């Protein structure tokens, strides 16, 4: 194989227009919604700046090696995930099938999240923003009860957007507005992925670069908001004590792993369109570092805005108390200001304690508001939307914010769809004469029809399930088998020679050590810790139930048994592909060895011969 001549073969495989497109596609795939709404949350709950330490250690020993492995694999074998793993060894073909399955499952629910983003986007063109005011009740004497008891933002999210049911077992009806947005989202995905990387390569210039522009605008605006500095100080003040908690290290490892979108097969697909002589090592390091830097960069505007929101809530609390006191004691207006509030309170408490007690004043604590940490959809659709209402020119900020979220999610969708599309194309599901547009159309149509389930009243509960079970454990398992497969079955010496041939320089000791020992060990530990943590308590969820006595707090409920079975199925199905396919091939091999007349002319494990 080292003697393979350098003749560039015209094999008709599509290729990237230029290197920048490829790097941008990988970065766009890796940088997604999680960088904006999960990393800042983790930083906040795990001791601020101190979280960066386990994060970068995980990046060094888990993220970069695995990324390099996938990119090198795809680039050398020039095949999608299923064909590539079949080429390495038919026994390992299950890895490709498993990652293809995970890509399918994740594509389904990820685009529904984008549907929600689109719904908020098209609602941002109104004055006033629909989530800023509560609607009136039927006889117009007051506000809608559900809205009044929670907040307008909560009401818009849970009622007007999701129309959520109080229980996962109650499916509710299909929400027609979500169906419209879902159709639009899949149409956009179809538009961009219609001819594979030919079209996504052009679209990625916009969807990958635009979020950085918006983040910068939000950064500048966020820093000018009052209370931004409190938020930032709170975020970045390191609390090194948290590092003693193993949970922090686990969260860092899982965050790096899921953030880089490893084991989806999408990265293998992207790299397979590269010319063989390409420096995959530099690419891997570049993509991983850009992804992590983006996470850190995104957390600055997020925390400026959260600090602003906390400060505003604190001031509101103070103002409400002040008004109550002024009304009760008939003091002149503006006699009590926020600055002298504490002195007034102590004076009044000493002189009229019963009156003060009768007012039932809420104690206002800025730290309490800063401590409220939210991640995921709650951060984007509840907390951030509330903060946007308070900013001047809220329509513009809302539009910018939701376009940014949409671009971030769309560029990740490209990678997911590519992980589904490329293997199908190579398996020649459709005849070769049929155009590529047909295959991508079929994929998008079928996905749209299946994803209609997520537009039901209970849809968001199901998306949580998919996110927690289909998009987590299987990836860890698949990545583990990937490393073991390449290092111990394909043999690391062979792989090192391949990589050397591609990059033109000898493989560093760092790669050898991480690929051979550190990364598989880390993956194993993370997997076991992750599963143990999940199993510690019965799987539960929080439901939005207006009839709950603790409303507006969400109600803790346990999944019914049939839902738990589905969770296990979602997590197990992609993982089980790996041993199943190996078993299938073993049985086939045994049957063939028993009956030699059955041997068909077959090329076994011929990796370099075909491209």
């Amino acid at each position, binding site marked *: 194989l080292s003697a393979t001549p350098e003749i560039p073969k015209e094999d008709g495989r599509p290729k990237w227009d230029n290197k920048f497109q490829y790097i941008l596609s990988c970065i766009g795939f890796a940088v997604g919604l999680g960088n904006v709404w999960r990393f800042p949350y983790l930083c906040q709950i795990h001791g601020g700046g101190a979280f960066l330490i386990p994060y970068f250690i995980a990046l060094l020993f888990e993220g970069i090696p695995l990324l390099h492995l996938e990119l090198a694999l795809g680039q050398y074998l020039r095949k999608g995930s299923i064909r590539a793993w079949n080429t390495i060894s038919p026994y390992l073909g299950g890895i490709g099938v498993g990652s293809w399955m995970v890509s399918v499952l994740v594509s389904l629910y990820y685009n529904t999240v984008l549907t929600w983003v*689109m*719904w908020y*986007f*098209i*609602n941002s*063109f*109104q004055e006033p923003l629909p989530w800023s*005011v509560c*609607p*009136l009740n039927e006889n*117009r*004497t*007051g506000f809608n009860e559900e809205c009044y008891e929670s907040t307008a933002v909560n009401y818009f999210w849970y009622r007007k957007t999701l129309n959520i049911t109080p229980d996962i077992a109650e499916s509710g009806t299909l929400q027609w*507005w979500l169906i*419209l*947005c879902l*159709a*639009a989202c899949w*149409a*956009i995905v*179809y*538009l961009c992925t*219609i*001819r594979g990387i030919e*079209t996504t390569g052009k679209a990625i210039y916009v969807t990958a670069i635009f979020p950085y522009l918006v983040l910068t605008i939000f950064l500048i605006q966020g820093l000018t908001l009052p209370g931004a500095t409190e938020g930032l100080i709170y975020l970045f003040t390191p609390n090194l004590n948290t590092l003693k908690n193993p949970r922090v290290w686990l969260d860092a490892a899982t965050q790096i792993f899921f953030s880089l979108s490893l084991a989806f097969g999408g990265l293998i697909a992207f790299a397979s369109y590269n010319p063989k002589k390409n420096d995959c090592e530099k690419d891997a390091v570049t993509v991983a570092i850009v992804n992590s830097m983006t996470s850190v960069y995104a957390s600055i505007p997020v925390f400026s805005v959260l600090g602003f929101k906390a400060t505003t809530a604190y001031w509101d609390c103070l103002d409400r108390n002040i008004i109550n006191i*002024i*009304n009760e004691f*008939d*003091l*002149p*207006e*503006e006699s009590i200001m926020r600055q002298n509030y504490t002195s007034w309170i102590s004076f009044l408490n000493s002189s009229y304690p019963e009156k003060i007690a009768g007012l039932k004043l809420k104690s206002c604590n800025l730290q309490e508001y800063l401590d409220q940490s939210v991640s995921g959809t709650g951060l984007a659709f509840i907390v951030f939307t509330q903060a946007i209402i308070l900013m001047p020119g809220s329509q513009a900020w809302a539009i910018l914010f939701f376009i940014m979220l949409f671009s971030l999610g769309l560029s990740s969708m490209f990678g997911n769809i590519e992980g589904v599309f490329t293997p199908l194309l190579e398996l020649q599901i459709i005849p070769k004469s049929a*155009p590529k*547009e047909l295959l991508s159309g079929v994929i998008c149509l079928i996905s749209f029809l299946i994803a209609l389930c997520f537009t039901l009243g209970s849809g968001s509960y199901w998306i949580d399930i998919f996110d927690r079970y289909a998009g987590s454990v299987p990836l860890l398992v698949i990545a583990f088998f990937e490393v073991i497969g390449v290092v111990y079955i394909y043999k690391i010496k062979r792989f090192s020679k391949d990589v050397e041939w591609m990059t033109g320089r000898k493989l560093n000791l760092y790669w050898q050590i991480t690929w051979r020992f550190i990364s598989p060990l880390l993956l194993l530990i993370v997997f076991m810790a992750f599963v143990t943590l999940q199993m510690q308590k019965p799987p539960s969820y929080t439901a939005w139930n207006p009839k709950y006595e603790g409303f507006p707090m969400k109600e803790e409920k346990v999944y019914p048994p049939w839902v738990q079975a589905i969770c296990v199925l979602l997590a197990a199905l992609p993982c089980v592909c790996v041993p199943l396919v190996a078993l299938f091939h073993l049985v086939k091999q045994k049957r063939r060895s028993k009956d030699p007349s059955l041997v068909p002319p077959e090329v076994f494990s011929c990796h370099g011969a075909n491209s």
Partner: protein
Amino acid sequence: MLRALLFPLSVVAIAHAELCKPDAQNAFKVRISIKTALGDNAYAWDANEEYLFKAMVAFAMRRYSSRSTTQISNVLLCNVTDRVSFWFVVTDSSKNVTTVPGSEVEAAIRMNRNRINNAFLLSDKTLQFLKITSTLSPPVEPSTPAWLIVFGVVLCLVVAGIVFLIVSGIQKHKKKNKESTERENLEEKVEVTLENGMPCEALDLKAGHINGVFAADDERFTSL
């Protein structure tokens, strides 16, 4: 004479104090927040403003059908604080020392709330009648919800893009097919036998030389 006047005046004053006091029957508390509403343009609350208030209440009662003879002197204000807040009550001029029922006052104020607010440059929130709830304004509902319009625009753009890409793809496909069939036709027409990359017609066989060495030695070999 002065004493003759003093007695009825004091009776009236006492009667007024009886009618207008905090939590009296048919009395309403008013709370005004001028600085909150007007900021730097805030005016001070003084006797003139009180007079205007009395006039507005009397005006409201007059507009409300059955009380067309209400005078400013029928409106009594008391307990003015620095906040600014006070109690007021409307007396009935036809019956001595009684107050107009609270429900009538409430209805009158509600009917003319807007006029009263505007007279003081305030709003429902900054000129509060504590027992009188205000009807909330109906939400402005456009005929087509705005989001549907934006959605329509987005969808049209996307569908136009898809149609364009598919059509251009079909055209490219047709052009490629046409080109490949044209090339095939061209190759069929010229059925050239190639020898060493050169068509045989180019080799003029007649112009070739017979190599005498081999030709001459023909008879030497025995025939098989």
